[in-house]
């Protein structure tokens, strides 16, 4: 190859500056966001506690199902101030049964996070696949998926979830899902995913539609790229950012919905613990034992808030428009 003459050569402006990928830049921006980092540690803390629930409870010497009548007075209420907080029961005991609230909170986190994570995973996978297909293929396929999305959005989902609980859990049980709470949780996850994917699909479709008009997609096509290359090499890497943001913002939503459903009596059944079950139960005692209402409520608020703050931080970090370094 011949040498390009000096006139056609771009002056070299870079010294020994380290090269950073867009992902790396986003990570550095995220690390600079103190609040978001703290929030993600809170999330991580809850996740660890939930994963290690049996170990944590063993270490603390508590059990979510053990009844402790000694902690209750003659009226069945906690025998002491603030729900009978003691060395044995760090967050007090449940009125009526004397079960340890901390242990129930820890095990409850398991249920809430499990429902949250699995629902988010399912909705994201379904939503991303349908959204990309609709946006990339356009035409009839897009029209069909989009109308289906509108239809799903038009359903009064909460009402349906509550109304269909019994027939559908029985159906699941007949398919071999263990009776009781496993079947009920499976039902909640499935039904939340059934209605939740549309939000992901809409955003991903919009992003894909915008991206496919960019010239780099045409450039790949001009080189003879097939559909797989387009989707996995050109499109997906550019929509990871919005997908991550949707995930981090929709997860707390599902945690809250699980609690709502359990509170309404659709979710978990006692004696198993979930934050919603605890909240639903505690309402009965809110005058005599406000601490019982307080504990799961605060836990729920803290977790949802931490997720949201982390999601906001991720969005700021991943959205190139929020980066002043790249301008100019």
């Amino acid at each position, binding site marked *: *190859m011949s040498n390009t003459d000096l006139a056609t050569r771009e002056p070299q402006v870079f010294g020994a500056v380290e*090269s950073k990928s867009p992902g790396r830049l986003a990570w550095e921006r995220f690390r600079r966001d103190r609040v978001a980092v703290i929030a993600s540690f809170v999330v991580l803390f809850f996740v660890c506690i939930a994963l290690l629930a049996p170990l944590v409870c063993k270490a603390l010497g508590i059990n979510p199902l053990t009844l402790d009548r000694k902690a209750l007075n003659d009226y069945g209420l906690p025998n002491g101030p603030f729900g009978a907080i003691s060395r044995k029961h760090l967050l007090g005991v449940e009125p009526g049964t004397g079960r340890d609230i901390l242990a129930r909170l820890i095990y409850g986190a398991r249920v809430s996070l499990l429902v949250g994570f699995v629902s988010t995973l399912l909705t994201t996978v379904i939503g991303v696949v349908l959204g990309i297909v609709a946006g990339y293929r356009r035409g009839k396929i897009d029209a069909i998926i989009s109308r289906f999305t509108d239809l799903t959005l038009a359903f009064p989902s909460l009402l349906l979830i509550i109304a269909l609980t019994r027939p559908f859990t029985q159906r699941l049980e007949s398919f071999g899902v263990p009776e009781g709470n496993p079947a009920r949780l499976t039902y909640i996850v499935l039904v939340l995913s059934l209605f939740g994917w549309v939000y992901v699909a809409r955003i991903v479709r919009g992003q894909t539609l915008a991206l496919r008009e960019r010239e780099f997609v045409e450039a790949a096509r001009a080189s*003879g790229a097939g559909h797989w290359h387009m989707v996995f090499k050109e499109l997906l890497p*550019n929509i990871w950012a919005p997908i991550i943001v949707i995930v981090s913002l929709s997860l707390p939503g599902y945690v809250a919905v699980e609690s709502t459903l359990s509170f309404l009596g659709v979710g978990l059944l006692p004696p198993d613990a979930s934050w919603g079950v605890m909240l639903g139960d505690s309402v009965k005692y809110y005058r005599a034992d406000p601490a019982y209402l307080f504990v799961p409520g605060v836990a729920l608020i803290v977790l949802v808030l931490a997720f949201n703050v982390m999601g906001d931080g991720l969005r700021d970090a991943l959205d190139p428009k929020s980066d002043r370094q790249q301008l100019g």
Partner: protein
Amino acid sequence: MSSEILLEGKSLVKYFPHGSKGIFGKSDGFVQAVDGVNLVLRKGQTLGIVGESGCGKSTLARVLTRLIEPTSGNIILDGRDITKVSGKELQSLRRDIQMIFQDPFSSLNPRHSVGEIIASPMRIQNIVPKGNEKLRVQELMELVGLNPEHYNRYPHEFSGGQRQRIGIARALALNPKVIVADEPVSALDVSIQAQILNLLEQLQHDLGLSYVFIAHDLSVVRHIADEVAVMYLGKVVEIARPEVLYSAPAHPYTKALLSAVPSATPRASHMHSRIVLQGDVPSPINPPVGCRFAARCWKAQDICVAQEPALGSQSFTSQPEEGLVACHFPENSN
């Protein structure tokens, strides 16, 4: 001048359906983006295509590169009709025609490093063994005047001119015969434009490339083209060698375009006054029946509205020196 014909477009037509299109909807009319365009590109030469925004230049570029299917007409590359080629054949055809894009900010995938961007055509076509890939990419970077050490950098770390060089390197990666450049410098600063134009000329000289060079700026094309086609509303209205076209434009539209080019010597601009066209370009959905320029032409007469002028009197392939014009009353006729 009479070197071998490499790429030929024969009465190329592209209509886009216009209007609502759902599951049930039927489109109501067509945008006639390109309407019967004949083009010839000779080996080692540059065919310039100019015209204002919306005249169908970019559509034409994409039809020629088989990114858009033409409604009718034929594309002939090296004597072979490639209009209907598909599947594996189309895949390997892509090696021969590559494209340089207009916007250096949207033509590079922001998530890929420069090395990946330049290597991707070779990976897609499966033509370079893994070990040699980096070597080949760095060679290409060197060739377009980029520092090969910037192999691992990302597009956001480069300026517009450098990004366009990356785009050029990508287009060169497959050793194409033809490069279709769709306004490759219009998004760049004027000082950078010259650098990129010089680079393209240098590459043409060194590698024997043939270009279809699209621009909306006549002065840009003047430097690089061996032949210039002027487009108006989906049709070629004049085609000639730049010496002829710039000194004695035959079509009134070409004359108006030329008069709008700012002059570097203000005194000279007094000598020929600027022609300001009245009105807007007609809608390509329902273009005029006769000459498409008639409504804005100061020389228009009844025949212009009634009858569409053909491009020249002979096929322009036979006598390319003369230039061809689609006008009932060309400028330099007596």
